[in-house]
């Protein structure tokens, strides 16, 4: 006991680079302020919370821009928290995505008579976890970031308290999420036991020199499986359709885009730094996950009649595409990261756009059935064109953004020039055709079918915040497709080579 005393007493606060943690602190501050607002103003504060959350998110972008302008890599806490270009581009993405989620939520939450202050407060704290995740280079930080982003999300999924399906959504998500965390923690403990350090760089060194095969392999498998839950990869996707269907739709969009992206951020860091030496273990595992996710996700999506469930399964399939470059990451290095980030960024734009349309249409039809989209072109042509852009972009049809996302992952696996890579490319090519079938089903409903007779076909009014969200995501989807340099400028492999 006494031996610890000097070190305890002599505790020195590690140096904190305030500029580097400014985005996180801003989010924390805004989240706290939103909660305080509720306490001080009570009901009168409701009207301001969403605006405040949105503005707070935009303010959090400022330190990210200044950090990017300085361009140097900053490390803290012995390398556990790193701010480099990889982290900055992803932080910026999480914040912009969260901003769009706030736009999507504004009317949905205000009209639904839900608690607003808590909603935005929890949303911001979840975003804080994601932003933290982008900088995490150590097992503990990764785990803390993961829980910070997950726990508010469990609560948000149950936000429609009166609806049993929302309760089911939250409970399922919670149970599966905790289960995944437990598996992951077990894997992390094995890795820690092997390396004696929680930093990914040290784990990498320990893994390459280690003879303890079963421990290393089990550790890697458990950690990857844990994140496979988070990114809803097959066969760990079972929570996704029920949770997506039951949760409030803006939260579904949040889970489908931001939470999935956060899982990929962690996977990239783990695979590229932590397990870099053991690509013989993680590559086949990720190959199977990728093929399984894209194929199973597609086949199940074909049978869906509910648009949100369809998006859930399409998300499983898209996760398979995003996993592709990681399955050859050992062969092509940071090119794999570049491809994944490119995909994630474009996916964020087009998927959020699709959810914005879903929210706009559900406001009128009060239904999630794909058949409720019948004849949409007749009374809501602008929305129809937007939705067509998003679904065909998700299917990867040029000149819409999705084609470049698909192109980036195809490029990565072909570049590997291995049997694994080429077979993955061929399977993905077949899958992109299957995917088109269900995406086109939505377009067919909107364009080719007649409006049901009892339907209300007066022109569809879309609230301004949704228009803003649609404009933002639609413009991004088109821009990324026609001028992909707009995105490769940020995701160039030379830029995003991870620091550790």
């Amino acid at each position: 006991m006494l031996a610890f005393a000097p070190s305890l007493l002599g505790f020195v606060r590690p140096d904190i680079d305030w500029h580097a943690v400014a985005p996180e602190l801003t989010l924390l501050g805004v989240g706290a302020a939103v909660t305080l607002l509720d306490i001080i103003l009570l009901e009168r504060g409701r009207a301001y919370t969403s605006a405040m959350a949105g503005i707070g998110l935009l303010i959090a972008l400022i330190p990210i821009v200044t950090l990017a302008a300085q361009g140097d890599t900053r490390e803290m806490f012995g390398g556990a928290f790193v701010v480099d270009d990889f982290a900055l581009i992803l932080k910026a993405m999480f914040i912009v995505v969260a901003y769009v989620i706030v736009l999507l939520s504004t009317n949905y939450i205000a009209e639904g008579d839900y608690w607003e202050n808590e909603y935005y407060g929890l949303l911001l704290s979840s975003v804080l976890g994601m932003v933290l995740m982008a900088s995490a280079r150590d097992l503990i930080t990764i785990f803390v970031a993961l829980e910070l982003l997950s726990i508010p999300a469990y609560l948000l999924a149950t936000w429609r308290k009166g609806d049993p399906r929302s309760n089911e959504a939250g409970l399922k998500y919670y149970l599966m999420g905790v289960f995944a965390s437990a598996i992951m923690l077990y894997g992390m403990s094995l890795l820690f036991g092997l390396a004696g350090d929680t930093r990914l760089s040290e784990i990498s060194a320990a893994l390459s020199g280690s003879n303890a095969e079963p421990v290393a392999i089990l550790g890697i498998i458990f950690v990857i499986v844990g994140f496979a839950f988070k990114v809803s990869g097959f066969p760990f996707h079972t929570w996704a359709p029920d949770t997506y269907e039951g949760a409030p739709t803006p939260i579904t969009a949040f889970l489908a885009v931001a939470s999935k992206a956060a899982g990929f951020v962690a996977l990239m860091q783990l695979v590229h730094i932590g397990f870099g030496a053991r690509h013989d273990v993680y590559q086949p595992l990720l190959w199977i996950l990728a093929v399984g996710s894209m194929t199973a996700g597609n086949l199940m999506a074909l049978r869906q009649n509910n648009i949100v469930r369809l998006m859930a399964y399409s998300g499983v399939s898209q996760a398979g595409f995003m996993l592709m470059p990681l399955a050859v990451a050992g062969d092509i290095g940071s090119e794999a990261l570049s491809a994944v980030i490119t995909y994630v960024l474009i996916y964020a734009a087009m998927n959020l756009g699709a959810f914005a349309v879903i929210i706009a249409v559900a406001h009128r039809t009060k239904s999630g059935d794909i058949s409720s989209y019948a004849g949409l072109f007749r009374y809501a042509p602008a929305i129809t064109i937007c939705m067509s852009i998003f679904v065909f972009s998700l299917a990867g049809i040029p000149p819409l953004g999705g084609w470049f996302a698909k192109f980036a992952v195809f490029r990565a696996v072909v570049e590997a020039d291995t049997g694994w890579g080429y077979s993955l490319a061929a399977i993905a090519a077949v899958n992109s055709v299957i995917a088109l079938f269900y995406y086109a089903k939505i377009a067919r409903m909107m364009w080719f079918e007649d409006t049901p007779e009892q339907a209300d076909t007066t022109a569809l009014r879309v609230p301004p915040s949704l228009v803003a969200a649609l404009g933002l995501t639609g413009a991004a989807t088109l821009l990324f497709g026609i001028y992909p340099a707009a995105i490769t400028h940020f995701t160039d492999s030379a830029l995003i080579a991870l620091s550790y």
Partner: protein
Amino acid sequence: MAEFLNDWGLSLATFLPVIGATVMLLIPKTNEHVHKLIALATSMAVAVLGVLLLIQFIDNDNYGNLNFVVDKNWIDVIDSRYIMGVDGISLPLMLLTMLIVPLCIIYSWNHFPEPRNPKAFLMLLLILETGMIGTFAAQDLILFFVFFEVVLLPMYFMIGVWGGENRRYAAIKFFLFTLFGSALMLVSFLALYFLGDANTFDMRLLPEAAAGIAQSSQVWIFGGMFLGFGIKVPMFPFHTWLPDAHTEAPTVGSVILAAVLLKLGTYGFVRIAIPILPEAAAEWAPFIGLLAVIGIIYGALGCLAQRDLKRLVAFSSVAHMGFVMLGIATLTDFGINAAVFGMVAHGLITGMLFFLAGSIKERYHTLDMARLGGLLLQAPRMGWILGFCAMASLGLPGLAGFWGEFPAILASYNPAEILSEEIFRSYMVIAALGTVLAAGYLLWMFQKTAFGNPKDEFANDPNVKDATASEYLAWAPLLILILVLGVYPYLLFGASDPAVVNSLSECLESTSSEACFDAAGR
């Protein structure tokens, strides 16, 4: 002027239609007349630009190489550039596109297919035009891929929204088939990039860069492209989307599909697959030739089994594209020139036949040949135009169709040195039989629809009248070109020949693929 055309002409011609479509997007749907005028003005402007480009092209007098080359940064990270340019192979096809689109707009001026909505219809048509022109002009594989795919969506909507009874099935079938091919084609393009000596997508550099790829890989890469282009053509086992798409599509959609979209596939073979991978092409050629002649015979037999006029024309497309592919499979300059001619001729003639089918459908509300008849009595001018086009389609000397079929057959008597003469001469015999069948089904079709007396149900139908002014306007340029090219084919051969000769690798003149590899210095 010359400088402007050289630097900007091609890009302007490509993107002008999209600009027109964007303007239309901003104008409310109810101003139908304004939409028609904008669409027509845009497509006419593109056509005028096309004529100017043609004059400048002749003036540059450099048919064999790329003219109007633009080479700008596009996506640096993947070394893909915005490279545009046309030579004697692509220019005729591009001009064909620029001609067909305004004719389609004129044709549909007063009768838009249900559910009307001229705004959306014409916007899609203009976007389609950008995709088609861009495909013929792109000289970078990724740029080509993007334009190649841009045509999918407008066509999908055109079939699905304005099509016939079974339009939903036809639209998605068309889309899925083409997408399947192009996904594998993209993988092939990427393999070319990474395996070639220079990491580039530039079509001008790739023939040299790809020469270093191992033969087995080359054959695989060619296979991917074969699927991509072969489905689009469409070649025999992949042709099933075509009759459905053609039958269900609105008239204008069928015309564009036949006149231009099918050419994207054959053009891909001539422009990309064969120049870049000549050795692999030589390995594949006997197989391609076989599928081509199967297509010729199968298409002809398919025609003989049809009751529906439009479906018959669709199957005749399969047969005609078989001739084009046979010409390409010979890997000789003679055969490929025939193929380029065949593409243009098929575009003009089959485009015309679909126009006619559309007009007949409009008058009789059916295309069932058992119910048609007596067109020459009821609408004599239209009847004779149908006869003229049937003659052109069966390859009557003096009309354009002849110069696509006959040289292709002739070329397969004497294929490239590297290919087996026996095999191709047997193909020649089968293809020649195909021309007899073609005469059979076309004359049978003409007889059924135009000869005899009108059936009772239509005998006194006031709806059945002769061709209208907008129809004459839309058809005249095509009919004149069919005749002019038939009488003076050198107009086209003269332009395409230097480019075709340039595109063929010398190694195709060696006697075996080993010798071919030796000639390449490996």
